[in-house]
């Protein structure tokens, strides 16, 4: 692996119980990349994400991770569960829990981790929410809190699973802006699974479209020219 490579998939097939959902995928994610994964429901987007996170081992092929990622420094933003929305915890408690992977066996969080958490909250503009209860926040604010937690866990790669589900359009816009900021200013690589093609194409540099039988991987412009992307462009122009 080259030093700037974070994740490399070599001829990877993923699936459950011997039945593969996704076959022969080659994919490289480097530092500072912005990759959008799109595709129809059931095409294997979530399966791929689980594979990238290391929660599912590939049926064949290899998924290589940089040493940092292999230690669990992954900034993952999962889809919210219903149980989470009314969880009694302060924003501060939630964000700090992102530092857990680096905490090791110590009982308390260190001062450095606390200031890291404060800094990440500052980046996302949620410092003033610090002592508020997570369940009292709006959907967009909750998503920011989870993003801050993800930043605490990782410094190089964010993996987001349909982050704008349940957000109103303004909050979704905000979230995309934040992601672009993190990607361009902080050099954070972003991998995002999304249904929202239009916004995705505006910010993403690379697009992975997973179809029923084949997949497409290329830049956003190449994607629009491809057969899969053309279908979408026609829809957008209507």
């Amino acid at each position, binding site marked *: 692996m080259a030093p700037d490579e974070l994740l490399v998939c070599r001829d990877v097939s993923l699936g459950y119980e011997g039945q593969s959902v996704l076959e022969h995928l080659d994919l490289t994610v480097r530092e500072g990349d912005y990759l959008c994964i799109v595709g129809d429901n059931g095409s294997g987007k979530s399966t791929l994400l689980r594979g990238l996170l290391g929660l599912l081992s590939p049926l064949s092929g290899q998924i290589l991770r940089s040493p940092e990622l292999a230690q*669990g420094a992954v900034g*993952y933003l*999962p889809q919210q569960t219903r*149980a989470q929305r009314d969880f*009694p*915890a302060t924003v501060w*408690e939630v964000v700090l*829990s992102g530092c857990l*992977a680096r*905490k090791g066996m110590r009982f308390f969080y260190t001062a450095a981790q606390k200031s890291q958490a404060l800094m990440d909250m500052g980046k996302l503009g949620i410092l003033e929410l610090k002592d508020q209860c997570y369940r009292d926040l709006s959907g967009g604010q909750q998503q920011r809190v989870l993003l801050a937690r993800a930043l605490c866990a990782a410094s190089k790669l964010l993996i987001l699973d349909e982050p704008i589900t349940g957000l109103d359009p303004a909050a979704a816009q905000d979230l995309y802006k934040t992601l672009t900021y993190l990607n361009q200013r902080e050099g954070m690589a972003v991998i995002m699974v999304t249904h929202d093609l239009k916004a995705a194409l505006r910010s993403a540099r690379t697009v992975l479209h997973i179809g029923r039988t084949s997949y497409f991987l290329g830049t956003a412009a190449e994607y629009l020219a491809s057969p899969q992307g053309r279908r979408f462009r026609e829809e957008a122009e209507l």
Partner: protein
Amino acid sequence: MIILEMLSWPFMQRALIAGVLVSLCCALLGVSLVLKRYSMIGDGLSHVSFGALAIAVALGFTPLSFSIPVVIAAAFLLLRMAGRPHWNSDAAIAVVSASSLAVGIIVISCTTGMTTDVDNYMFGSVLAMTDADVALAVLLSAAVLTLFVLFYHKLFAITFDESFSRATGLKVDRYNTLLAILTALTIVLGMRMMGAMLISSLIIFPALTAMRLFKRFRSVVICSGVTSVACFCAGLTASFVLSTPVGASVVAADLCVFLLSCLVSFLRHR
């Protein structure tokens, strides 16, 4: 005066010590279980432990040594069921608990006939606690408290978000298993005093009360423990004074405090 008189009876001393410890464990484990939407597991386990207890008595085993392994096995099973997204897990849990209740009742009626035994198992008896139970309660509560203090941050992370914790390399399944084992032990221990029908309320009520009142997870955990212990003491005293069944009295006390907390949070949000 009444309290002194109450504590002069050895069976009341045992009930008080074991009960306080069991209700503390229930409250701490309950916060995690309720927030993970596993409340039904506690209920299912208490029914399984009723069935196990009935079989143990019928076969002449000592109740605890037989029912503890059975209930722990059931805890594993129920946790697996709850973890399967494409399973109808609450229906599965209901099936397990109803079946073990049925098995328990059949076994009891075949052996001793439907006498006070069933009543005692179902609704608990203050006389049920032996010295061995008290010793086990002390050990168990020590284990639960240690778990909570040592792994507090990890438990928080896992309770809040299993997928994230898994992705950052926490051994989520290991902690869930530990939680299931401790819950099973707590329920087996508390069941004979509180009754199979009522023990699960010890797990659910304090957590719900605390969640209404506090915004910080740590405060919720502490409040849940304090509420649970206080309600148990109040319920035990009430049952001694009014000679009502102890389990029902404790649950009534829990209910009162819960309603009070609802009122407080309603007034606060107005």
